């Protein structure tokens, strides 16, 4: 039995490591801003004000949280199963397209939303299936196969949005989701899809840490050979890791199209469904690949994404700086012991002088 204090200190270490990676990301990001002649402090002030301290901003932050949490689960669950699943981008696009497809039938209210959710989840899982099969049957590394499928998904969606799913209306977008099949809005641009995302995270947490199946998946991720000796089939665990990840990414795509105003459709250049999948990597790493940790890290990155527009409006700093910061945070996350190394170096330095 561990006491509350022990459990707290157990939790403190990963949290400080994550915070340290975030701080380094922001500091180096600030450096790039200074080089181009911007004031990073004013920039970050508007970034965080726009993210968390205005009603519109907060709604948009939580709306991004919905998406990022789900794509974070795709990558984080993969990491727990020993997989480097960077296919969320393509699975997300396919999910979004499947939601549009479901929206093109005229279904009764309620049923339309349900069918949309199911279609998008299945489309995401379908796009993850070849990756899993290639990995398990052929030993193809998932990094190559997922990136190829991401690009294939990109061009397939481009074809669909300009072809079969094109809307002949005034707006040049895909078919719009009918208003009866959309997620109800809570406030601002925040839809009730956030509850589904959090529920999904809790279910994944429950499966991974409170069922035998989850234990097997984590065992395979921890040490595949040992797991095999214990009688666990690594192939099955990997398959489940990929499939749940695909369901999550597909749901994220569907929830974006069916939940986020104003368009409720995919733009013809796919602009509004690009880039989410890769952001999930940062969300998962900072959330320590834990579904509940990811809720907080998704809120942080959701804040960055939502606040960046205010930052650009008030200070002229291009929104792309946020992606630079995210990249640096991921590089830092590759080295969780960075803080310990620096501490040791500092100690050694002060000890010798």
């Amino acid at each position: 039995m561990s006491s509350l204090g022990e459990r707290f200190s157990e939790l403190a270490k990963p949290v400080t490591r994550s915070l340290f990676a975030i701080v380094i990301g922001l500091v180096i990001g600030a450096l790039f801003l200074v080089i181009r002649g911007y004031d990073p402090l004013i920039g970050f002030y508007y970034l965080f004000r726009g993210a968390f301290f205005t009603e519109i901003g907060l709604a948009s932050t939580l709306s991004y949280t919905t998406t990022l949490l789900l794509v974070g689960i795709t990558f984080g669950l993969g990491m727990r199963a020993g997989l480097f699943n960077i296919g969320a981008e393509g699975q997300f696009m396919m999910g979004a397209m499947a939601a549009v497809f479901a929206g093109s039938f005229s279904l009764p209210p309620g049923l339309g939303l349900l069918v949309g959710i199911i279609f998008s989840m299945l489309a995401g899982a379908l796009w993850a299936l070849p990756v899993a099969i290639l990995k398990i049957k052929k030993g193809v590394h998932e990094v190559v196969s997922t990136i190829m499928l991401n690009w294939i998904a990109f061009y397939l969606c481009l074809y669909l949005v300009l072809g079969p799913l094109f809307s002949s209306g005034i707006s040049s977008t895909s078919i719009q989701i009918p208003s009866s099949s959309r997620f109800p809005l809570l406030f601002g641009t925040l839809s009730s899809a956030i509850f589904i995302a959090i529920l999904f995270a809790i279910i994944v947490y429950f499966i991974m840490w409170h069922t035998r199946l989850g234990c097997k998946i984590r065992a395979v991720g921890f040490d595949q050979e040992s797991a095999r000796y214990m009688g666990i089939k690594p192939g099955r665990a990997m398959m489940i890791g990929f499939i749940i990840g695909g369901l999550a990414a597909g749901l994220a795509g569907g929830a974006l199209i069916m939940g986020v105003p104003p368009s409720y459709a995919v733009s013809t250049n796919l602009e509004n469904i690009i880039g989410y999948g890769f952001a999930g990597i940062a969300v998962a790493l900072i959330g320590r690949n834990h579904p509940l940790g990811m809720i907080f890290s998704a809120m942080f990155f959701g804040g960055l994404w939502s606040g960046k527009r205010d930052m650009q409006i008030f200070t002229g700093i291009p929104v792309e700086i946020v992606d630079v910061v995210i990249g640096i945070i991921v590089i830092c996350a590759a080295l969780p012991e960075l803080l310990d190394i620096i501490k040791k170096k500092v100690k050694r330095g002060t000890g010798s002088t």
Partner: protein
Amino acid sequence: MTFKIPRFLTKKSILVIILFVVVITILYIMQSADLKVSSLIMISLDAMVPLGLVAIGEVVNERAGTTNIGLEGIMLLCSFVAVLGAQNAGNWAVGILAGIVTGAAIGLIHGLISIYAKGDQIISGMGINLFAAGFVAYGIWTVWDTPGSHLLSTGLGMPRISTPWGGLSWFVPLTIVLALVVHFIFYKTRWGVWIRAAGESPGAVDASGINVFRLRLLACIFGAILAALAGAFMSLDWVHMTTNSLPAGRGFIALACVVFSGLRPISALGAAIIFGFFGGLSKWMMAVPQVVAAIPPGVDNFVNMIPYIVTLIAVAVVVSRRRFPKSVGRPYRREEI
């Protein structure tokens, strides 16, 4: 007496034969349809260069025991830096140099993280990809005030070798020579033995008095420099522009070439030629008026998919359980000898 299947008919060689037959058939059909075959070959050679350079660099890197999936990001970053350098100095050579320096710096960072600090190589590589995507978008926006892409000023592109079929890039012979040189170093010199041993059993190399860490770091920087050259080639010599997503997955197709090659530099070049052909084919089909006219609207997206689908099929058919160096991807720790 039973019929024996000849030994050379492995799954992989059959695939290679099939791919070559496909290539020849396509060329033959084009010839009889009076389309310009030579232009397809020239585009394919251009498309081969980035794949070949990245794949050869990664072969060296993986032989020494480190993986780098951030090569796509290094290509992207260096394609941008090369244009930036060339524009500022008014000379393409400065651009190439700027690209090489940037690539070496990123290689150094990745090497320090994965070899000396024993961090996670795959995450670090992916971080480089994400950083490059953000940085290039940020850079293009703040330097040229345009979103997404910037055209190279005329006259700043690299000169080309003139041939009867059009300009041939200097990078084409460079890539082929590099493959041969790396092959020579690998199998004929002491350095080659050290590099190959560093990936197999770093402990033995360390015990013989050679600094494994430095050897791996050098290999990592070498791989990154070749990726940087590939990026500089794309922006300064091939398409004459820098965009947010210039490599478009070529860094990963090159990783597939590496798997395909079984970590042999000349096989990596061969794989790059095959994959380069299909990349060139899809680019060529979109460029020739007769073909564009024949393609129904919307189907062009499927033409763009060709290189990715071919890569996926190729890695699926080839059984990649070929033995890779034992210690590839695992940081070396002195205590583990």
